[in-house]
């Protein structure tokens, strides 16, 4: 690294790790090793999670939507355990019971990924309440898509955060689509910051590829939230591929895709590094290779992780001090005996 007063190499590395991770998820799918097809990749959307992930502090917490692998990696998620979870295996973060859409590491402050659009948003209000009550200095950030901007629960949550002055940030990763529905066909007005501001939140709208700047601005919002001024951040980006693994995006044109994929935060960052002589091609290549190996290992780990034991169907429903649910088999056998 040629220069040290820039975060760019770190931010680049995180973005590249996210992308490579997602690419391997895609491969895992093609190999038939994923649990199901509901895999929502964030390729093209790495900027937001990366800069917010960097702007958050160690103790901070967050929830994510179904397309949440990115922020999890940015916050220190272990690709091995993530990949194993996506494969539905025993060594996954949630023992394979949660899968790609329900992946979390509570120890890292990840309070849960959510398959319900908007479902994880009020959680951060409660986390903010705890943080303030317990004086823990934790900011809690909800990540969600542009689709969730149309879910009522978001407004209930923003209002509460504002009313109670909670250390909470709402972050909308606006990738322009909710499944096949373009944002123009979902939102009456697209100026989401205006909505958030009307509830009393500080707002930030990120719509370019300069991640260092995005990082600095996001950090301001998060720092203010830490002082009990809740905030809202919208990060505009583009979902480079289909909604989930089975979707070939027939509802949008190839021209659009080609054009939009040019707004690639990763190539932008690497170009910036080259241009400003922060790293040379070789150095970048080295980083990429290291990441590639890391993610290959994660994939192998997932493939080799054992299946979970059948009895795990019944564990984890209730606190471990409580009895397990009675299995249907046991019930039936008792009746028939």
């Amino acid at each position: 690294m040629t220069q040290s007063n820039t975060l760019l190499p770190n931010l680049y590395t995180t973005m590249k790790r996210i992308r490579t991770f997602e690419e391997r998820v895609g491969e895992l799918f093609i190999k038939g090793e994923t649990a199901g097809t509901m895999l929502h990749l964030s390729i093209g959307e790495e900027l937001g999670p990366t800069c917010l992930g960097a702007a958050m502090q160690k103790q901070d917490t967050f929830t994510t939507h179904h397309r949440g692998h990115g922020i999890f990696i940015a916050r220190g998620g272990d690709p091995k355990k993530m990949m194993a979870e996506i494969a539905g295996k025993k060594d996954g973060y949630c023992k394979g019971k949660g899968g790609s859409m329900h992946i979390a590491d509570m120890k890292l402050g990840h309070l849960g990924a959510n398959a319900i659009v908007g479902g994880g948003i009020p959680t951060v209000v409660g986390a903010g309440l705890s943080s303030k009550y317990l004086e823990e200095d934790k900011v809690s950030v909800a990540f969600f898509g542009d689709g969730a901007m149309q879910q009522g629960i978001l407004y209930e949550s923003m209002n509460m955060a504002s009313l109670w002055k909670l250390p909470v940030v709402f972050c909308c990763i606006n990738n322009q689509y909710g499944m096949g529905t373009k944002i123009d066909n979902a939102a009456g007005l697209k100026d989401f910051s205006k909505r958030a501001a009307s509830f009393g939140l500080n707002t930030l709208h990120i719509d370019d590829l300069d991640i260092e700047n995005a990082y600095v601005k996001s950090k301001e919002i998060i720092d203010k939230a830490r002082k009990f001024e809740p905030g809202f951040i919208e990060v505009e980006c583009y979902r480079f591929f289909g909604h989930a693994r089975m979707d070939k995006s027939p509802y949008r044109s190839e021209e659009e895709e080609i054009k939009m994929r040019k707004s690639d935060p990763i190539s932008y960052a690497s170009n910036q590094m080259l241009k400003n002589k922060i790293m040379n091609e070789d150095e970048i290549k080295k980083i990429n290779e290291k990441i590639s190996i890391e993610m290959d290992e994660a994939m192998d780990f997932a493939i080799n992780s054992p299946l979970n034991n059948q009895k795990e169907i019944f564990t984890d429903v209730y606190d471990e001090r409580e009895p397990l649910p009675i299995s249907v088999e046991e019930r039936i056998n008792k009746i028939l005996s």
Partner: protein
Amino acid sequence: MSDLNKNYYEKITFRDALRLAIHDSMQKDEKIIVMGEDVAAYGGAYGATKDLLKLFGPKRIIDTPISEAAIVGASMGAALTGLRPIAELMYVDFFGMSMDQIANQLAKVRYMFGGQINAPMILRAQGGTGRSAGAQHSQSLETWIMHTPGLYLSIPYTPNDAYHLLRAALKINNPTIFIEHKLLYNTSGVLDKNNPDQIFGKAKIRKKGKDLSIISYSRMVNFAEKAAEELAKQKIDVEVVDLRTLNPLDRETIIESVNKTKRALVLSESCYTAGVPSEITSIIFEHCYTNLLKPVIRYTAEDTPAPVAPNLEENYIPTIEKIVEYSKKLCK
């Protein structure tokens, strides 16, 4: 869906039967509109409204924002004021987002206002396990609906029923919840447009038998049929009852069947405790108990959320193997 205008299809998928039902109904009745998330450009998450946008245009095939509560509420408002919406909730799991509009508004609007008005609409939703979709996308929540007076509830198994039940529901002035199992869309069968083969609210005996009644609905009827085949080899003659609608519930057919076979297994993908099978089981005991040779068995999903791991998910719900096993025990 190459030929829309045939009356008889030797082999059509459940998905296409639904699409045809919507299509045919829309052609006949201008008041019918379709609304839901991704029903237009995307063609429906499971493809049940594919190409309808092209045929009927965006005025009648309406993509909505991701706002389940408002989707149901707006559909109801449209139904109260002259339209007949077919609304779609992509997953039954999203009942949670819209349960107030479903159970407190839609189900009660007629009653609360003393019968002044009907809310003639269908709310389609898709449920069940089988795609590793996890705890929030794999539920079978028909019990919530069945326990809510005011809502008709249809939950078909065959393409023919999917077609005819949907069309029938569009002629009834009650709000109807229409639940489709995610693994049924690709299954196929005959569709005979001239043979409804049912009245809304009438169960269907899929296979006659004399030793044991397996009573079920939706995808689990398929499991029942397969188990029955296996059991036939072992000289156990199973009667397979497909309920098709849960409200109205065809109590007579259930009671008749079990009074004949004297043994019953109720099969469902919902959780065990306080689910639809509890109701069916109660009815059977109440009305057949002097005839019963064995207690009725409820075979359902476990009383846990649905796990993602395929090997767990498979055993989270009933298996054909165990249906056979329990049936044999019942017939011993």
